[in-house]
């Protein structure tokens, strides 16, 4: 529903050489399809939450049979949803940031803007990798001790699938940051060549 300025496929795999930034473009190796698919899963999950809570509300009031475990499932789900969709949210340029300085640079010093964006994306990559490596051990532990929400004899759900989804989400987001940085650098190099040709 948003009028995206450049959809995947609108430009080559490296992105338009003179696009203002790397967002909303096709990614190398067609990886935007992977991120898009994960995003779609997250989307269905949101719809599932709506159905689940309504089932609980109507079941409780009309049939006196609440759905047990909705509270636990909702609080786990939100984490799963966020990390399934994190990479696509990044790819489509939806991470919030201030654009005052960047907009000016894009107009006046496009190569500096490219370089700065590359740096920011690399920082994002590093941060994701740090969280990623620290998230591995909790996942293993969660499987080992069969961590669950709920209670024995009542509703019980395992926690590890959410930890796994989180890990996958962090990994794909790290990948996305890396690809964005690479596209920034390529764009900067292309601008440099053009400047060289003109001179």
């Amino acid at each position: 529903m948003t009028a995206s300025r450049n959809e995947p496929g609108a430009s080559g795999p490296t992105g338009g050489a003179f696009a203002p930034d790397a967002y909303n473009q096709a990614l190398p190796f067609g990886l935007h399809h992977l991120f898009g698919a994960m995003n779609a899963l997250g989307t269905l999950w949101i719809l599932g939450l709506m159905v689940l809570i309504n089932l609980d509300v109507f079941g409780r009031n009309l049939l006196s049979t609440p759905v047990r475990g909705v509270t636990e499932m909702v609080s786990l789900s939100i984490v799963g949803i966020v990390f399934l969709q994190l990479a696509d949210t990044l790819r489509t340029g939806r991470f919030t940031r201030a654009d005052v300085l960047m907009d000016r640079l894009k107009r006046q010093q496009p190569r500096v803007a490219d370089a700065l964006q590359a740096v920011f994306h690399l920082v994002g990559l590093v941060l994701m990798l740090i969280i990623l490596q620290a998230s591995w051990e909790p996942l293993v532990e969660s499987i080992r001790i069969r961590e669950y929400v709920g209670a024995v004899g009542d509703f019980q759900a395992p926690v590890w699938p959410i930890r796994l989804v989180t890990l996958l989400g962090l990994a794909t987001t790290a990948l996305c940051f890396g690809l964005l940085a690479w596209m920034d650098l390529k764009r900067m190099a292309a601008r440099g060549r053009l400047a060289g040709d003109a001179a």
Partner: protein
Amino acid sequence: QQTIKLTAAAGHPPVFLWVKTLDEVFIPEVDRKLAAGGKYKIEWTKAFGGTLVKLGSESKGIADGVADLGVVSTLFEAAKFPLQNVSYYTPFGTDNIELMSQTIAGLQKNIPAMADAWNKNGLTYLGGMALDSYHIWTKFPITRIEDLNGKKISAPGPAANWIRGTGAVGVAGSLNTYYEDIKSGVSDGVVVFTTGAWGAKVHEVAPYVTKVNFGAQFAGGIAINKRRFEKLPPEVQAAIREAGDKWTAEYAKAQSALVDTRFKEMAAAGAKISELPEAERKRWADALSPVAKTWAADAQSKGLPADQVLNGYMNSLIKAGTKVPRDWSK
């Protein structure tokens, strides 16, 4: 004089007595002991209310070194402390908070698997705490278990097992939601402990308080990062251990006194407090499924000596003179 930096944390805010006494009993006691020795001084950073470690991840936060010591709510970390939660699967026990923490402390001493839960998670156990006995707060009076038939009762986690079989429908929730849930009619009442009920102001919306006495419940303790503890000078270690014992005793005493105060305050605020007759209490206990057996079987399947814990637990309650309406180990 050597200064040592320690960070104390808790997922709960200090309105809860186990956190308040960590701040007002435990920490000053460590300081007092060390001041007497004169060699060491601790510089404390305090982060309560989940500002540093959240409820449910307190043990990991302390084991990781994000905090050095603090309250670990075993209730919210059932997968890491399965055996510590035995009381939640053996309702209608004792309302004596001190007896409850002593019982669990005794089991931890005698059954290695129980003490191991702390060590394996990178923690050293310093003292324990139990919540005061659970009762039921409702919009309607209760004199017999039939009064619960068809009613929606908020009973989260293991407490859901205390309701199933009475004809009531269990509804999820937490201390944060009870007030709104009952007020709006999502549930007709709640099973909760007295001091928590007062904090959540449940009596304003569910004024019928029936003392069912589901029993005090072991809910956690103070623990310190194991590696950090072992590196501390012996004198500091001793001070911390002794402060842990003092905290355990003082907390139990203070919490018991608080329960009486809270009941008086609730009555003054218009709550109608009554006691469930002993015969009805027995009928209630008998109406439940053998939940302790289910729990023990689950833990045994994970290689834990839950049968031994269950037997030891019931034995020590009965030996201490508790009249239990149902022996869950049978």
